[in-house]
């Protein structure tokens, strides 16, 4: 299978951080205007707007496409609002792609933005004992960092990884992110800095767990024909998008569940949804892991980045540490991972994050990632996981 491509004409971001004076709408509109400026396409020319929802900003956040369209000025284009947890941005992009490839529209705008309270993410309030996301907090205080801690401890037991290996991921990503004007933390951290921060979810420390953040990102995408008609050269193209759901049984426990699926019937105790996400993206793009020049992966924690090396096939299981310490995943290495600085340098703005990953893919492929450029980047992948089972991965190439 190989799926037809679409073009990325413009990308834009609002810096990540804490902006209590702004709403998610302000943040999204700034990102959108920046993407429109980057593309040279006017808002009045946009035929479809795909919004990635935020569930932490009331009703306007649940109908983000009309909220953003209204803020930009209602001009009558078709719209869709979607929510898929951390995968929302990829889902919004995939809907825009469907509209373009089906011929319903030629050019679309994709926007995601968030503005959140400080502190750990919490489930939707109320008494909801039929919701595993609510139950995991109520029955055992199983917050997101606890999963990251368990994944890290599992690596230590299975592969002999050490806490300092995890801290080294944070150090690398902070060195990448220090040159990214959109990153929240413009600081290079050392192993000692990491180890001086308090333990949050053993063995992980505060500096190794991504913080909740405000931020916004947007893309202008179009058919290849439209791009050529408009005179665009050296097009960045979306070659694959993965929005797959899990194949039962997912033997590796994941958010928000407090039990794994049983592998009695499959006999495969290693099957994890996260491998499937990448496999589908590769299939659509018709490429293999060794074709990647770089990747943007969802480092919700330092140790989690190492898991992703294995899930996307950069190395065999248990070998991620070697890749890291060889310098392979550092800018200048064989396959740099998170040249943007990743979530370690950004924090997480849920509906914007997968879109921000595509912004970085685009800047890298255009050779415009000043201070953090991956040399001669031709193919890049972004990947993350949306809670409850939403895949999210994009392959872009030039």
């Amino acid at each position, binding site marked *: 299978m190989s799926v037809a491509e679409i073009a990325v004409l413009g990308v834009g971001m609002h810096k990540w951080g804490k902006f209590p004076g702004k709403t998610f709408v302000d943040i999204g509109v700034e990102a959108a205007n920046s993407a429109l400026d980057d593309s040279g396409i006017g808002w009045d020319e946009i035929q479809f707007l795909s919004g990635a929802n935020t569930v932490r900003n009331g009703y306007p956040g649940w109908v983000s496409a009309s909220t953003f369209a209204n803020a930009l000025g209602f001009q009558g284009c078709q719209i869709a609002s979607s929510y898929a947890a951390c995968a929302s941005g990829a889902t919004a992009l995939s809907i825009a792609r469907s509209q373009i490839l089906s011929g319903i529209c030629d050019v679309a705008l994709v926007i995601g933005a968030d503005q959140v309270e400080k502190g750990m993410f919490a489930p939707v309030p109320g008494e909801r004992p039929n919701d595993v996301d609510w139950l995991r*907090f*109520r*029955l055992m*205080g199983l917050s997101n960092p606890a999963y990251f801690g368990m*994944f890290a*401890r599992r690596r230590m037991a299975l592969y002999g990884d050490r806490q300092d290996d995890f801290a080294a991921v944070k150090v690398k990503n902070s060195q990448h992110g220090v040159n990214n004007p959109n990153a929240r933390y413009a600081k290079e951290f050392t192993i000692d800095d990491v180890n001086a921060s308090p333990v949050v979810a053993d063995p992980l420390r505060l500096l190794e767990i991504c913080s909740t953040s405000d931020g916004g990102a947007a893309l202008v995408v179009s058919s290849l024909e439209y791009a050529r008609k408009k005179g665009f050269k050296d097009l960045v193209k979306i070659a694959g998008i993965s929005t797959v759901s899990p194949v039962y*049984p997912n033997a590796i426990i994941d958010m928000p569940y407090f039990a794994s*699926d049983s592998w009695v019937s499959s006999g495969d105790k290693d099957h994890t949804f996260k491998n499937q996400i990448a496999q589908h993206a590769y299939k659509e793009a018709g490429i293999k892991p060794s074709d990647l020049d770089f990747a943007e992966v969802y480092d919700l924690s330092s140790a989690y980045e190492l898991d992703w090396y294995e899930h996307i096939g950069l190395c065999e299981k248990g070998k991620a540490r070697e890749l890291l310490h060889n310098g392979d995943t550092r800018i200048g290495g064989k396959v740099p991972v998170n040249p943007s600085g990743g979530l370690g340098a950004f924090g997480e703005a849920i509906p914007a994050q997968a879109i921000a990953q595509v912004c970085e893919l685009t800047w890298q492929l255009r050779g415009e990632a000043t201070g953090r450029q991956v040399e001669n980047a031709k193919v890049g992948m972004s990947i993350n996981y949306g809670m409850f089972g939403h895949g999210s991965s994009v392959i872009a190439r030039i």
Partner: protein
Amino acid sequence: MSKNRVPAVEGMFRMDFDNPQLIGGRSKATGTYYFPKELSGSDPLAEGSTDREEVLLSTEGTIWSFTTASYPPALPYQITEPFEPFIICAVELEKEQIVVCGQMMPGIDIDDIDVGTKAKLALDVLYEDNETEHIVWKWDLV
């Protein structure tokens, strides 16, 4: 006078302090296990929810992984002040080939556990108010 004891959630475990057991589900068609009986992943080869029979899960297993909650979890977790950090572990049950999370019983030292350590099911107070103790399953060392 001792407080009234109620399960913190209905239908997920037996309220028997001497012989606690988790209540799961099993597919008659494929033999796969579920915990909880509902709300877990669904086997597409099984024939809908009527296929799930209620079963009691094994009470002993080995630790698949573990971590700490060193900071207070968010609501709806009910915090008893002052907050005491606790250990969370995921325990692999051999027969059911499933991993189930829970807090570890208070007082267990993190240095005494590792991936592969044996654990057994226990019941303990999750939180309490003036009249009632809300009970949940936890994992204990064997």
